[in-house]
């Protein structure tokens, strides 16, 4: 299984999290769906789809929480027949991040949640303090996306 990163500071915490939690797939992304690091994906199209859907779920559940006067949900868990999906946000000096974790029957949601806490703390410690980022322009988007895909899949 491969781990690849766009931002190198995320690699060590991610590798440790994958090992401890027994995760099959992990995506670390921004709330906009920009992937910073991933584990387990072999095809760019799958990774981008997972990141976009994960970010959309967090955005829509956050909006739903706001509608009912609640704070955004801490984490979401979907128990499937063969896989579980854990989706949670964490704050870092680089800005808020979303982590999507897919795991199988060899581990459990208890272990994933337990080690996610450590992972979130490690990300918070490792993340560089963000500089004011330029707004993403439509013209730059494709170039940015291609750069990220090249970093993640080395092609």
């Amino acid at each position, binding site marked *: 299984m491969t781990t690849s990163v766009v931002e190198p500071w995320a690699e060590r915490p991610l590798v440790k999290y994958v090992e401890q939690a027994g995760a099959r797939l992990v995506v670390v992304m921004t709330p906009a769906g920009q992937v910073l690091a991933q584990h387990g994906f072999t095809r760019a199209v799958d990774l981008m789809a997972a990141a976009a859907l994960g970010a959309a779920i967090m955005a829509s559940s956050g909006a739903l929480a706001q509608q009912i006067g609640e704070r955004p949900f801490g984490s979401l868990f979907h*128990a499937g027949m063969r896989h579980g999906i854990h989706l949670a946000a964490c704050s870092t000096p680089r800005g808020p991040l979303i982590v999507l974790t897919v795991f199988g029957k060899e*581990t*459990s*949601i*208890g*272990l994933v*949640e*337990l080690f996610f806490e450590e992972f979130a703390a490690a990300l918070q410690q490792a993340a560089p303090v963000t500089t004011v980022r330029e707004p993403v322009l439509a013209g730059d988007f494709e170039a940015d996306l291609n750069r990220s895909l090249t970093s993640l899949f080395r092609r």
Partner: protein
Amino acid sequence: MSEALLRALKRISRVRGVRGSMWVSAEDGITVADLLMEGVRGRAIAALAASLARKVSGAAAATGSGKVRFVQLEAEEGTLLVAVAPGDLLIVALADRRVNVGLLRLEMMRAAEAAAA
């Protein structure tokens, strides 16, 4: 149901040396009910106890030993005991070195049987 679960935990916690006891979902590794001394990391114990039970069950199945009913892990500073109860539940107890393991095991098995009834 939760009253009965808590009553069982109270009985287990009365055994001298017990630092905490809990009902844990075997599949998810999350706590269903607990009675813990301060400083005991319930979430971590629940997750790790369920993982331990799953791995021991796998080993037992591989060796043809049948269903696992009880797991005892002795460490330097204490003991972790896990009893398998019906309904995808585990009874987990964390105890220090002075615990009477026999008595604790008896209470845990009683709780597991009560959960089955």
